[in-house]
């Protein structure tokens, strides 16, 4: 019946202290621990759960990047995805890769694989863009259920509870659709040892963006990367009048 595409991004591990490169062109990635983006883990977990509940037949894990991303795909396979697709992007193209290029790739793959759902993490913890899911849906002209904290399949429709600023919003969208996973959607499982063994035998297909008719040219150029300014000590005041006076004195108001 249905096939789900799940996007998994290889990012610097959340626990690592990020360091800016001396030339301010980016952050140090060499020799730094990388792992699957936490929101992508949640996306994989949701897809695998849908498969276990028999709503979908096959889960395909997709990642874009150099050879190292196959580790991330294998982790997704060990969590229960059936097969993987590695879209090879390296060098300058990889450094310049952003949500628009990824969205184009996913849109092309969603059509090629005849997917009923594309499930992505809401954002990546390295760039915090929160755009890929939305762009993918727009390119496909599919409905989108973003910031999902609960997903229920109801026939040909999907009920999505979304976390929004005002609280929770429930929407019903028809499939095929794009969903993005928020923090409280589920708790990702640990890859079990037997599943790690099984993952060895699962297939990962290789392709290039050109095979999907996608051009990787970026319209965004990173000029400079800096550390956030060091936080200065604050000043304590006794009354509201003192506060207003101080704010006036330093020109804030």
């Amino acid at each position, binding site marked *: 019946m249905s096939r789900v595409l799940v996007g998994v991004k290889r990012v610097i591990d959340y626990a690592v202290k990020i360091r800016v490169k001396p030339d301010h062109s980016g952050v140090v990635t060499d020799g730094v621990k990388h*792992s699957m983006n936490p929101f992508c883990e949640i996306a994989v977990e949701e897809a695998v759960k849908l498969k276990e509940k028999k709503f979908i037949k096959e889960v395909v894990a997709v990642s874009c990047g150099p050879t190292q991303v196959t*580790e991330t795909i*294998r*982790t997704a396979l*060990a969590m229960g995805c059936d097969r993987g697709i590695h879209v090879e992007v390296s060098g300058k193209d990889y450094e310049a890769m952003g949500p628009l290029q990824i969205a184009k790739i996913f849109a092309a793959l969603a059509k090629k694989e005849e997917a009923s759902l594309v499930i992505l993490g809401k954002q990546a913890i390295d760039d915090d863009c929160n755009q890929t899911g939305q762009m993918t849906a727009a390119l496909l002209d599919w409905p989108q259920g973003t910031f999902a904290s609960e997903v229920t399949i109801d026939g040909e429709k999907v009920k999505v509870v979304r976390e929004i600023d005002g609280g929770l919003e429930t929407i019903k969208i028809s499939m095929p659709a794009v969903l993005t996973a928020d923090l409280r959607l589920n708790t990702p499982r*640990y*890859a*079990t*040892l*037997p599943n*790690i*063994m099984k*993952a*060895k035998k699962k297939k990962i297909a290789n392709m290039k963006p050109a095979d999907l008719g996608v051009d990787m040219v970026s319209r965004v150029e990173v000029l400079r990367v800096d550390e956030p300014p060091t936080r200065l000590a604050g000043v304590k005041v006794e009354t509201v009048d003192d506060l207003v006076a101080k704010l006036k004195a330093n020109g804030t108001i």
Partner: protein
Amino acid sequence: MLSLDSSRKTLGLCVSGCRSLSSLAELPEMHQMMRQTCRDYADRELGPIAGKLDKEHLFPAQQVRELGAMGVMAVEVPEALGGAGMDYLAYSLAVEEISRGCGSTGCVVSVNNSLYIGPILKFGTQKQKEQWITPFTTGEKVGCFALSEPGNGSDAGAASTLARQEGEEWVLNGTKAWITNSWDASATVIFATTDKSLKHKGISAFLVPMPHPGLSLGKKEDKLGIRATSTANLILEDCRIPLGNMLGSRGSGFKIAMQTLDSGRIGIASQALGIAQAALDCAADYAHKRTAFGAPIGKLQAVQFKLADMAVAVESARLLTWKAAMLKDAKKPFTKEAAMAKLAASEAATFCGHQSIQVLGGMGYVTDMPAERHYRDARITEIYEGTSEIQRLVIAGQLLKEYAS
């Protein structure tokens, strides 16, 4: 002049069929993934509660079940019997990572895998494997291993627990001491003398469910370390079990025990490595953060030398442990290497535990920091599953055999 054969033996070269030493630098992908999943589990689920488990002497039942679901409670057991179907190197990595999060939990994992499931996997009949291994792969049940007695630990051949046959039953009488997991176990592999005149060749191995009439538990020992595990005496008073509960053939008990301990040593070495690494992590982290004399203490040579010595001790013990595991996986003799691994790793653990407290100074002495728990957890690794002194005897024995003309 050494012959070509014995010099090859003395150089310890792994001949074809076994992974070469050069691959120790980079583990195979599956092993790396497996190590990562165990590390993630240990960091997120065990690290935060290890202090509480230790203070309150709590058996980590929930965590053992979760580890069972991951396949960690039966790493080497074939999938057909409910295990993970991986090799001993994978098992060693799993125990090290788990122990790094919580030394006690690592001990439970090691005892279940090596000491309880190990001998049944090697010497049991298919029926015994299905009955006594499969239910113990999920983490719902754990097993234990009863060899030591109040009257003999290192002197295992002097077992005074007796087993006599009465019709279709064995009747066991005696006391076993220092049994890890005793209060939490659902079965035990236990050793008793069936023929006193044959001395150590008259010892046999038996499988006893727990609880069971005729088997009672002594009081829980109040231990220095690994306090989340239960350690107690097993008291057998006319404990009756079916004849089919004998493991292996009559009189092969001592051999079963010794071979089981050979493998068990790799498990304990891995546990010791995890504790040692945790102690090193604690000290190195503190060295970055604590300032004295106007700079982080990591800038002081005295501290640097300690950290370097700790790192060398852990890494060399780790390579010995991996080598022993790889030899076992290649079905090559590994007795000497396993003993070397256990000796090196346990001494590394006590060394790192000690030095970690020293680096932390006063903070190392209080329970706010985990250094004191690592110090206490490390100590047992030099004692159980063969004391450091016994390991030296085993190593020397193997070594001298190699040099014999």
